[in-house]
């Protein structure tokens, strides 16, 4: 856990910020439920587990310009666990990159919101992820180029814990450390579930933080649903020299919708029915 957390929190955080971000996270979760219901298929669990992190990135941490998605000074976000794109679509729409009217086209023919991200079809999407772990390498390459062109943009890459099974993640981990990409902040949505079952049952992942440390990364371990801890790690990562950083964010798959929480089948591909949607919305509304 970050030593300078309190200082960082005091510097950047006040009560209003935290309230705003919690509200945004709630809106994102509700929008995710709504659009997946329209779609009739997709991946709810990993979208909900990442909602607080994504809210903090889009409404606090990253420099973005919704009116000009390709603004050269923007920070660069890659959703490497591409199946969780509803959570990013919700953040993009809520930020004003496109209208929420687009939600009902998710996963439907001629829709702008694809089942996995498509940079040509959706404003604000940087990479066509969907094949796990390619987004991570893509983000590292972008970050290396920012270094070469002396640009100060930061690169944020969101990965899944199941995704850590891929060898490419560890090829990238070596690459990031080798090139001292301190403009990279990777985040692992550590919900301990993957497609069929828990990490422990599918492929032992522990000790994850030690793996990243031994690969030369600066590691933060936080509660990925605690806004103070998320912002604290974001702030601390900016001060790291000579190393890339990774946040291992402990989360709950399906967070916020009780019947989805920690239930493997809600990984997907599965969408809430009308009744389930009503239930989910009511729970999200009553939260806090």
């Amino acid at each position, binding site marked *: 856990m970050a030593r300078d957390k309190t200082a960082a929190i005091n510097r950047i955080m006040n009560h209003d910020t935290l309230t705003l971000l919690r509200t945004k996270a709630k809106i994102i979760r509700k929008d995710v439920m709504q659009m997946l219901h329209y779609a009739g298929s997709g991946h709810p669990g990993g979208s909900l587990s990442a909602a607080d992190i994504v809210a903090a990135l889009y409404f606090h941490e990253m420099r973005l310009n919704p009116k000009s998605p390709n603004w050269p000074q923007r920070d660069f976000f890659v959703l490497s666990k591409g199946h969780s794109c509803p959570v990013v679509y919700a953040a993009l729409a809520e930020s004003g990159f496109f209208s929420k009217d687009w939600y009902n086209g998710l996963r439907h023919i001629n829709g702008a919101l694809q089942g996995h991200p498509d940079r040509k079809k959706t404003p604000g999407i940087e990479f066509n992820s969907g094949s796990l772990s390619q987004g991570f390498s893509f983000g590292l390459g972008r970050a290396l180029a920012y270094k070469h062109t002396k640009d100060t943009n930061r690169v944020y890459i969101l990965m899944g814990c199941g995704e850590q099974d891929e060898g490419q993640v560890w090829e990238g981990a070596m690459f990031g450390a080798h090139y001292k990409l301190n403009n990279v902040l990777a985040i692992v949505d550590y919900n301990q579930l993957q*497609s069929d079952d828990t990490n422990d049952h599918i492929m032992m992942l522990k000790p994850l933080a030690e793996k990243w440390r031994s690969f030369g990364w600066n590691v933060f371990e936080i509660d990925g649903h605690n806004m103070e801890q998320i912002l604290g790690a974001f702030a601390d990562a900016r001060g790291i020299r000579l190393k890339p950083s990774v946040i291992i964010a402990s989360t709950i798959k399906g967070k916020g919708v009780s019947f989805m929480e920690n239930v493997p089948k809600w990984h997907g591909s599965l969408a809430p029915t009308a009744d389930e949607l009503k239930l989910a919305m009511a729970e999200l509304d009553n939260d806090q």
Partner: protein
Amino acid sequence: MSTESLRVAFGQSLVRLAYKYPNFVVFDADVAGGTCTHFFRNDFPDRFIQCGIAEQNMMSAAAGYSLSGITPFVTCYAVFASMRAVEQARNSVAYPDFNVKIVASHVGLDVGPDGVSHQALEDLAIFRAIPNFTVISPADEREVLQATEVMLRTHGPTYMRTGRSPVPDVTPADYQFKIGKGVVLKDGSEVTIVATGIMVHRAIAAAQHLKNDGINAKVVNISTIKPIDRPLLQQCASHSRFMVTCEDHNIYGGLFSSVLEAIADAPVPVYPVAVRDCFAESGEPLALAQKYGISEADIINLIKSKHN
């Protein structure tokens, strides 16, 4: 009359064959629910090898495992089997000629809403280009079961694609799948429709429709893409005014290419129903088939336009 998806048919075939053939195992990369190997995992956990989301390691590990004499099925989505782990399939499996059976779900536009990243439109072309590989693309539940059993009885690297949407039975009850053998499913005289996989039932429906228009089309199911049934195709070529190929695959390197190569010296035109070298998008499989030109109507319209 069943309307099972080919992936469910494969999953059930593994379970049915498991008792008769104690000497095979199934490798998975955390997609058992998608490939339908979960049936086998539930019934035969000791013969199920979970590799995590790491397809390349799975492919080479299966090659090593095969030296035991126990046959490994390597199962995952076709994009990952045929592209992510293809170099392992070539150098770890095909080159040393190991007895590894790769069976992949999520093929073609039939994948639907998951979109382009998961729609394998290149898998037949890719595996066909690798020496020692047999490439199978079955059309219905019966053919999946028989092909799976034949794979177990035949040595050598093999790739088979399944599918996501339910498909009706197209083969007759007394059908016997043989590697390298095509089969005439409907007789006809002027036109031959050569189809593979989920396109076979569309081809049969199209041929029935065309009968009402006075066009008598033969339908051939080519379920072994490699080695392809050259004698049958040459015979069809010599008795047809023209031929049409139907595949849920890119136009390059799949069935169309295979048929053209097989009958290169025949003076008969061959027209493709295939995806026209583009990436598609998310959508329901039937809507995608219509938009990207591989629906039943596309087969009918093509044949009508060439028939006059």
